[in-house]
């Protein structure tokens, strides 16, 4: 019989406690290092920005990887890793020469072979990449620093593609990593960017740590969006994910973090009034609210019904209801973000209508037969949840039968892939948003008219596809603008989606943080803590 006295018991407990805790390693930064403490907009779950399109993985990619080309503030591709490049007169051969001094985090030199493998893998995952590679005849290394791209036919968006600013960004990785099956995640995280990923300190769901890569050679130009010199001005960047907005805000106010990437718009009132906290809009493009119809199922297999529904969608209502403060949104009736080169107003009257009565009349004309509309409402994302509720109310008002089905976002993402009838788990509508940079030109998958390869909702329109193909081949800016307008007109006339307005997510930070870069993507270089 084992008999323990009370004291023995306590002693044993005291011994066991640290043992169980000792299993966890923790590291602490040295005191003198400068640290930028960040609340990212999402939890970094995936470390492979080619495998996933998640924006958080893209931001992670920008920290540790570099790109051949990069967009500047005016959305013009500028060389980043590339030193100089040439295009042959027939526009079929492109030759890129890498800058000197580029090094991987493991110390090896960056070679053309590495870049070719990286582009290859990206070309298998990314939509624009697939388009580009469809035109590429060969991609070879001239020498260790020269990449030669031969095209089958002239292609208008070569630099726009490899200088793509948002997901999937063609980040450069060492060849051995880039050779990973594009449908599997990479397992080694070596880049050539200004920061290095600290795998040991990564706590998925909570914390990610980056440290400065001392051997990085920034370009000499001043930073401009993704382009220009990427100078790391802090020794460490620490991301701590906060699932709770209130707690996150309080942490910022209490000086427990320095930078809050995407606070809820409504919290701005509180944050703005706090001493030592700056609130500003960092992303000039913002986001575009999207109401997506399922073109395969009734009632939205009828373009007139879709257009009637769009006529009911008054952007002001969505923006005021879901976003709030008017500082953070504006109406925008162009399918390309307002204040970007391709913005125009062709065919957008339908979106501008915003009138219940007119919409109701249009619906009647369209011959709506009372088929119920199933709207998927992602309840874990307040903005989209609000969009869904507002749409439901509007559609009911114009005389449609509406059923709102609540679910979380992950259920929604799996269900929206179903093309089956509603009875078998299909759907009629869902809401989402695109970041402005993603829908900056007709090549975005959001505008696809190909029901087999297109985006969920599967509009089918050959004319739309023809225009988009033409855009890809168009080489001049004016020609591009003209085709883009045609694409937009087509999109509105088939009622592909409803656009719910352009809204901006400000960032909030403590006033000792300096050097923010205006861009639709969050970059952490050039930022310093004083």
């Amino acid at each position, binding site marked *: 019989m084992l008999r323990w006295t009370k004291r023995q018991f306590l002693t044993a407990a005291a011994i066991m406690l640290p043992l169980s805790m000792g299993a966890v390693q923790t590291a602490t930064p040295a005191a003198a290092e400068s640290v930028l403490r960040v609340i990212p907009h999402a939890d970094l779950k995936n470390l492979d920005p080619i495998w996933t399109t998640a924006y958080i993985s893209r931001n992670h990619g920008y920290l540790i990887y570099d790109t051949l080309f990069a967009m500047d503030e005016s959305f013009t591709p500028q060389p980043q890793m590339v030193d100089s490049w040439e295009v042959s007169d027939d526009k079929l051969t492109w030759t890129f020469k890498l800058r000197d001094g580029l090094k991987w985090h493991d110390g090896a030199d960056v070679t053309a072979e590495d870049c070719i493998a990286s582009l290859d893998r990206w070309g298998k995952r990314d939509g624009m990449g697939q388009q580009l590679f469809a035109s590429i005849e060969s991609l070879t290394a001239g020498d260790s620093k020269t990449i030669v791209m031969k095209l089958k036919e002239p292609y208008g968006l070569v630099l726009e593609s490899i200088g793509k600013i948002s997901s999937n960004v063609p980040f450069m990785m060492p060849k051995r990593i880039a050779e990973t099956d594009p449908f599997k995640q990479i397992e080694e995280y070596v880049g050539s960017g200004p920061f290095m990923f600290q795998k040991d300190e990564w706590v998925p769901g909570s914390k990610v740590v980056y440290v400065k890569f001392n051997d990085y050679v920034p370009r000499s130009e001043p930073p401009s969006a993704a382009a220009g010199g990427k100078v790391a001005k802090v020794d460490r960047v620490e991301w701590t994910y906060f699932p709770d907005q209130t707690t996150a*805000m309080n942490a910022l106010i209490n000086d427990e973090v320095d930078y809050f990437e995407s606070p809820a718009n*409504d*919290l701005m009132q509180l944050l703005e009034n706090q001493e030592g906290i700056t609130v500003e809009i960092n992303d000039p493009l913002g986001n575009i609210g999207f109401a997506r119809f399922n073109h395969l199922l009734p009632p939205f297999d009828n373009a007139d019904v879709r257009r009637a529904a769009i006529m009911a969608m008054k952007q002001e*209502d969505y923006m005021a*209801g879901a976003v709030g403060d008017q500082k953070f949104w504006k109406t925008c009736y162009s399918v390309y973000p307002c204040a970007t080169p391709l913005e125009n107003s062709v065919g957008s009257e339908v979106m501008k209508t915003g009138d219940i009565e007119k919409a109701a009349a249009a619906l009647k004309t369209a011959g709506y037969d009372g088929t119920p509309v199933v709207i998927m409402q992602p309840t874990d994302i307040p903005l989209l949840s*609000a969009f869904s509720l507002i749409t439901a*109310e509007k559609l009911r008002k114009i005389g449609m039968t509406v059923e709102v089905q609540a679910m*979380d976002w992950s259920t929604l993402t799996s269900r929206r892939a179903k093309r089956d009838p509603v009875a078998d788990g299909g759907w009629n509508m869902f809401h989402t948003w695109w970041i402005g940079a993603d829908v900056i030109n007709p090549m975005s998958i959001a505008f696809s008219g190909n029901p087999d390869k297109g985006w969920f909702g599967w509009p089918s329109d050959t004319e739309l596809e023809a225009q988009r193909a033409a855009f890809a081949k168009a080489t001049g800016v004016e020609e591009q603008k003209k085709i883009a307008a045609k694409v937009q007109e087509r999109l509105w006339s088939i009622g592909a989606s409803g656009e719910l307005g352009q809204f901006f997510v400000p960032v909030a930070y403590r006033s000792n943080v300096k050097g923010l870069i205006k861009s639709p993507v969050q970059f952490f270089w050039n930022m310093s803590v004083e």
Partner: protein
Amino acid sequence: MTDTPTSSGKTDELLAVPPSSASDPNLAVLLWRHPSIFWGGILLSIMVLIAIFGPLFTGDPIELNPIKRLKPPSGESWFGTDYLGRDTFARVIYGARVSLVVGLAVSIIAVSIGLVVGMVSGYIRALDAVIMRVMDGLMSIPGILLAIALISLSGATMMTVVTAIMIPEIPRVVRLVRSVVLSVREEPYVEAAIASGTKLHLVLIRHILPNTIAPLIVLATYICGSAMLTESILGFIGAGIPPEIPSWGNIMSEGRTYFQLSPWIIFYPGIALAITVLAVNVVGDGLRDTLDPRIARKM
């Protein structure tokens, strides 16, 4: 040791009053002795009345009014408005309905299922071991976790929420019923019934079942209270009742972001919830003290 002669009990003799029977509480005396039941009951009745009739007198709890979003309490909207400009007062009143329905549904279903399973487990030895292992297993999974998992995996509807909250409660009921059955089946009057040839199901229904009722009523009130609380936590986490239904949990969940900006969105449903659960628990405590103070240890 069954044949040790004992006196009829020390306390009885000490007080020189015949042993009182638990089965005939005079209502007036009961309320007098246990004011908690009285006050709790009144509070609860008010909540029930509000739940039934309240929504008839308030505005539409789901009508959106984006212009008037996040407005503080005023004469127009007593409890202020939420982020879509919906009237929090109307929503809180309507939420009483949802919370009470969830609480009642969970406690009634859990108690019914647990009663049957517990009786079977307590009386049929062959099934006892299997049932109790399953119950142990179920009990070892943290209730809230199980509920979140069930709901988020099978989709949030009122049904799944009630089911998910209910399932983790069942083992408690089963254990209670089983323990009552095990102790009552040794009672001489049960043995007398068996000895006079009464069939098993009649023994269970006539002689054993009634003994489970008092503790089950008490347990049911606790389950009702905790179900309402669980509902709110699920709502808060975002895995509760469909959000277009204004349950207190959902209202608070939607007010989460605005806690410091518009505290009324969380404050009022929070108060309503706390008062209701408090009332239910107070009534439960009172009933427990009245019906049988010894139940306390079985729960």
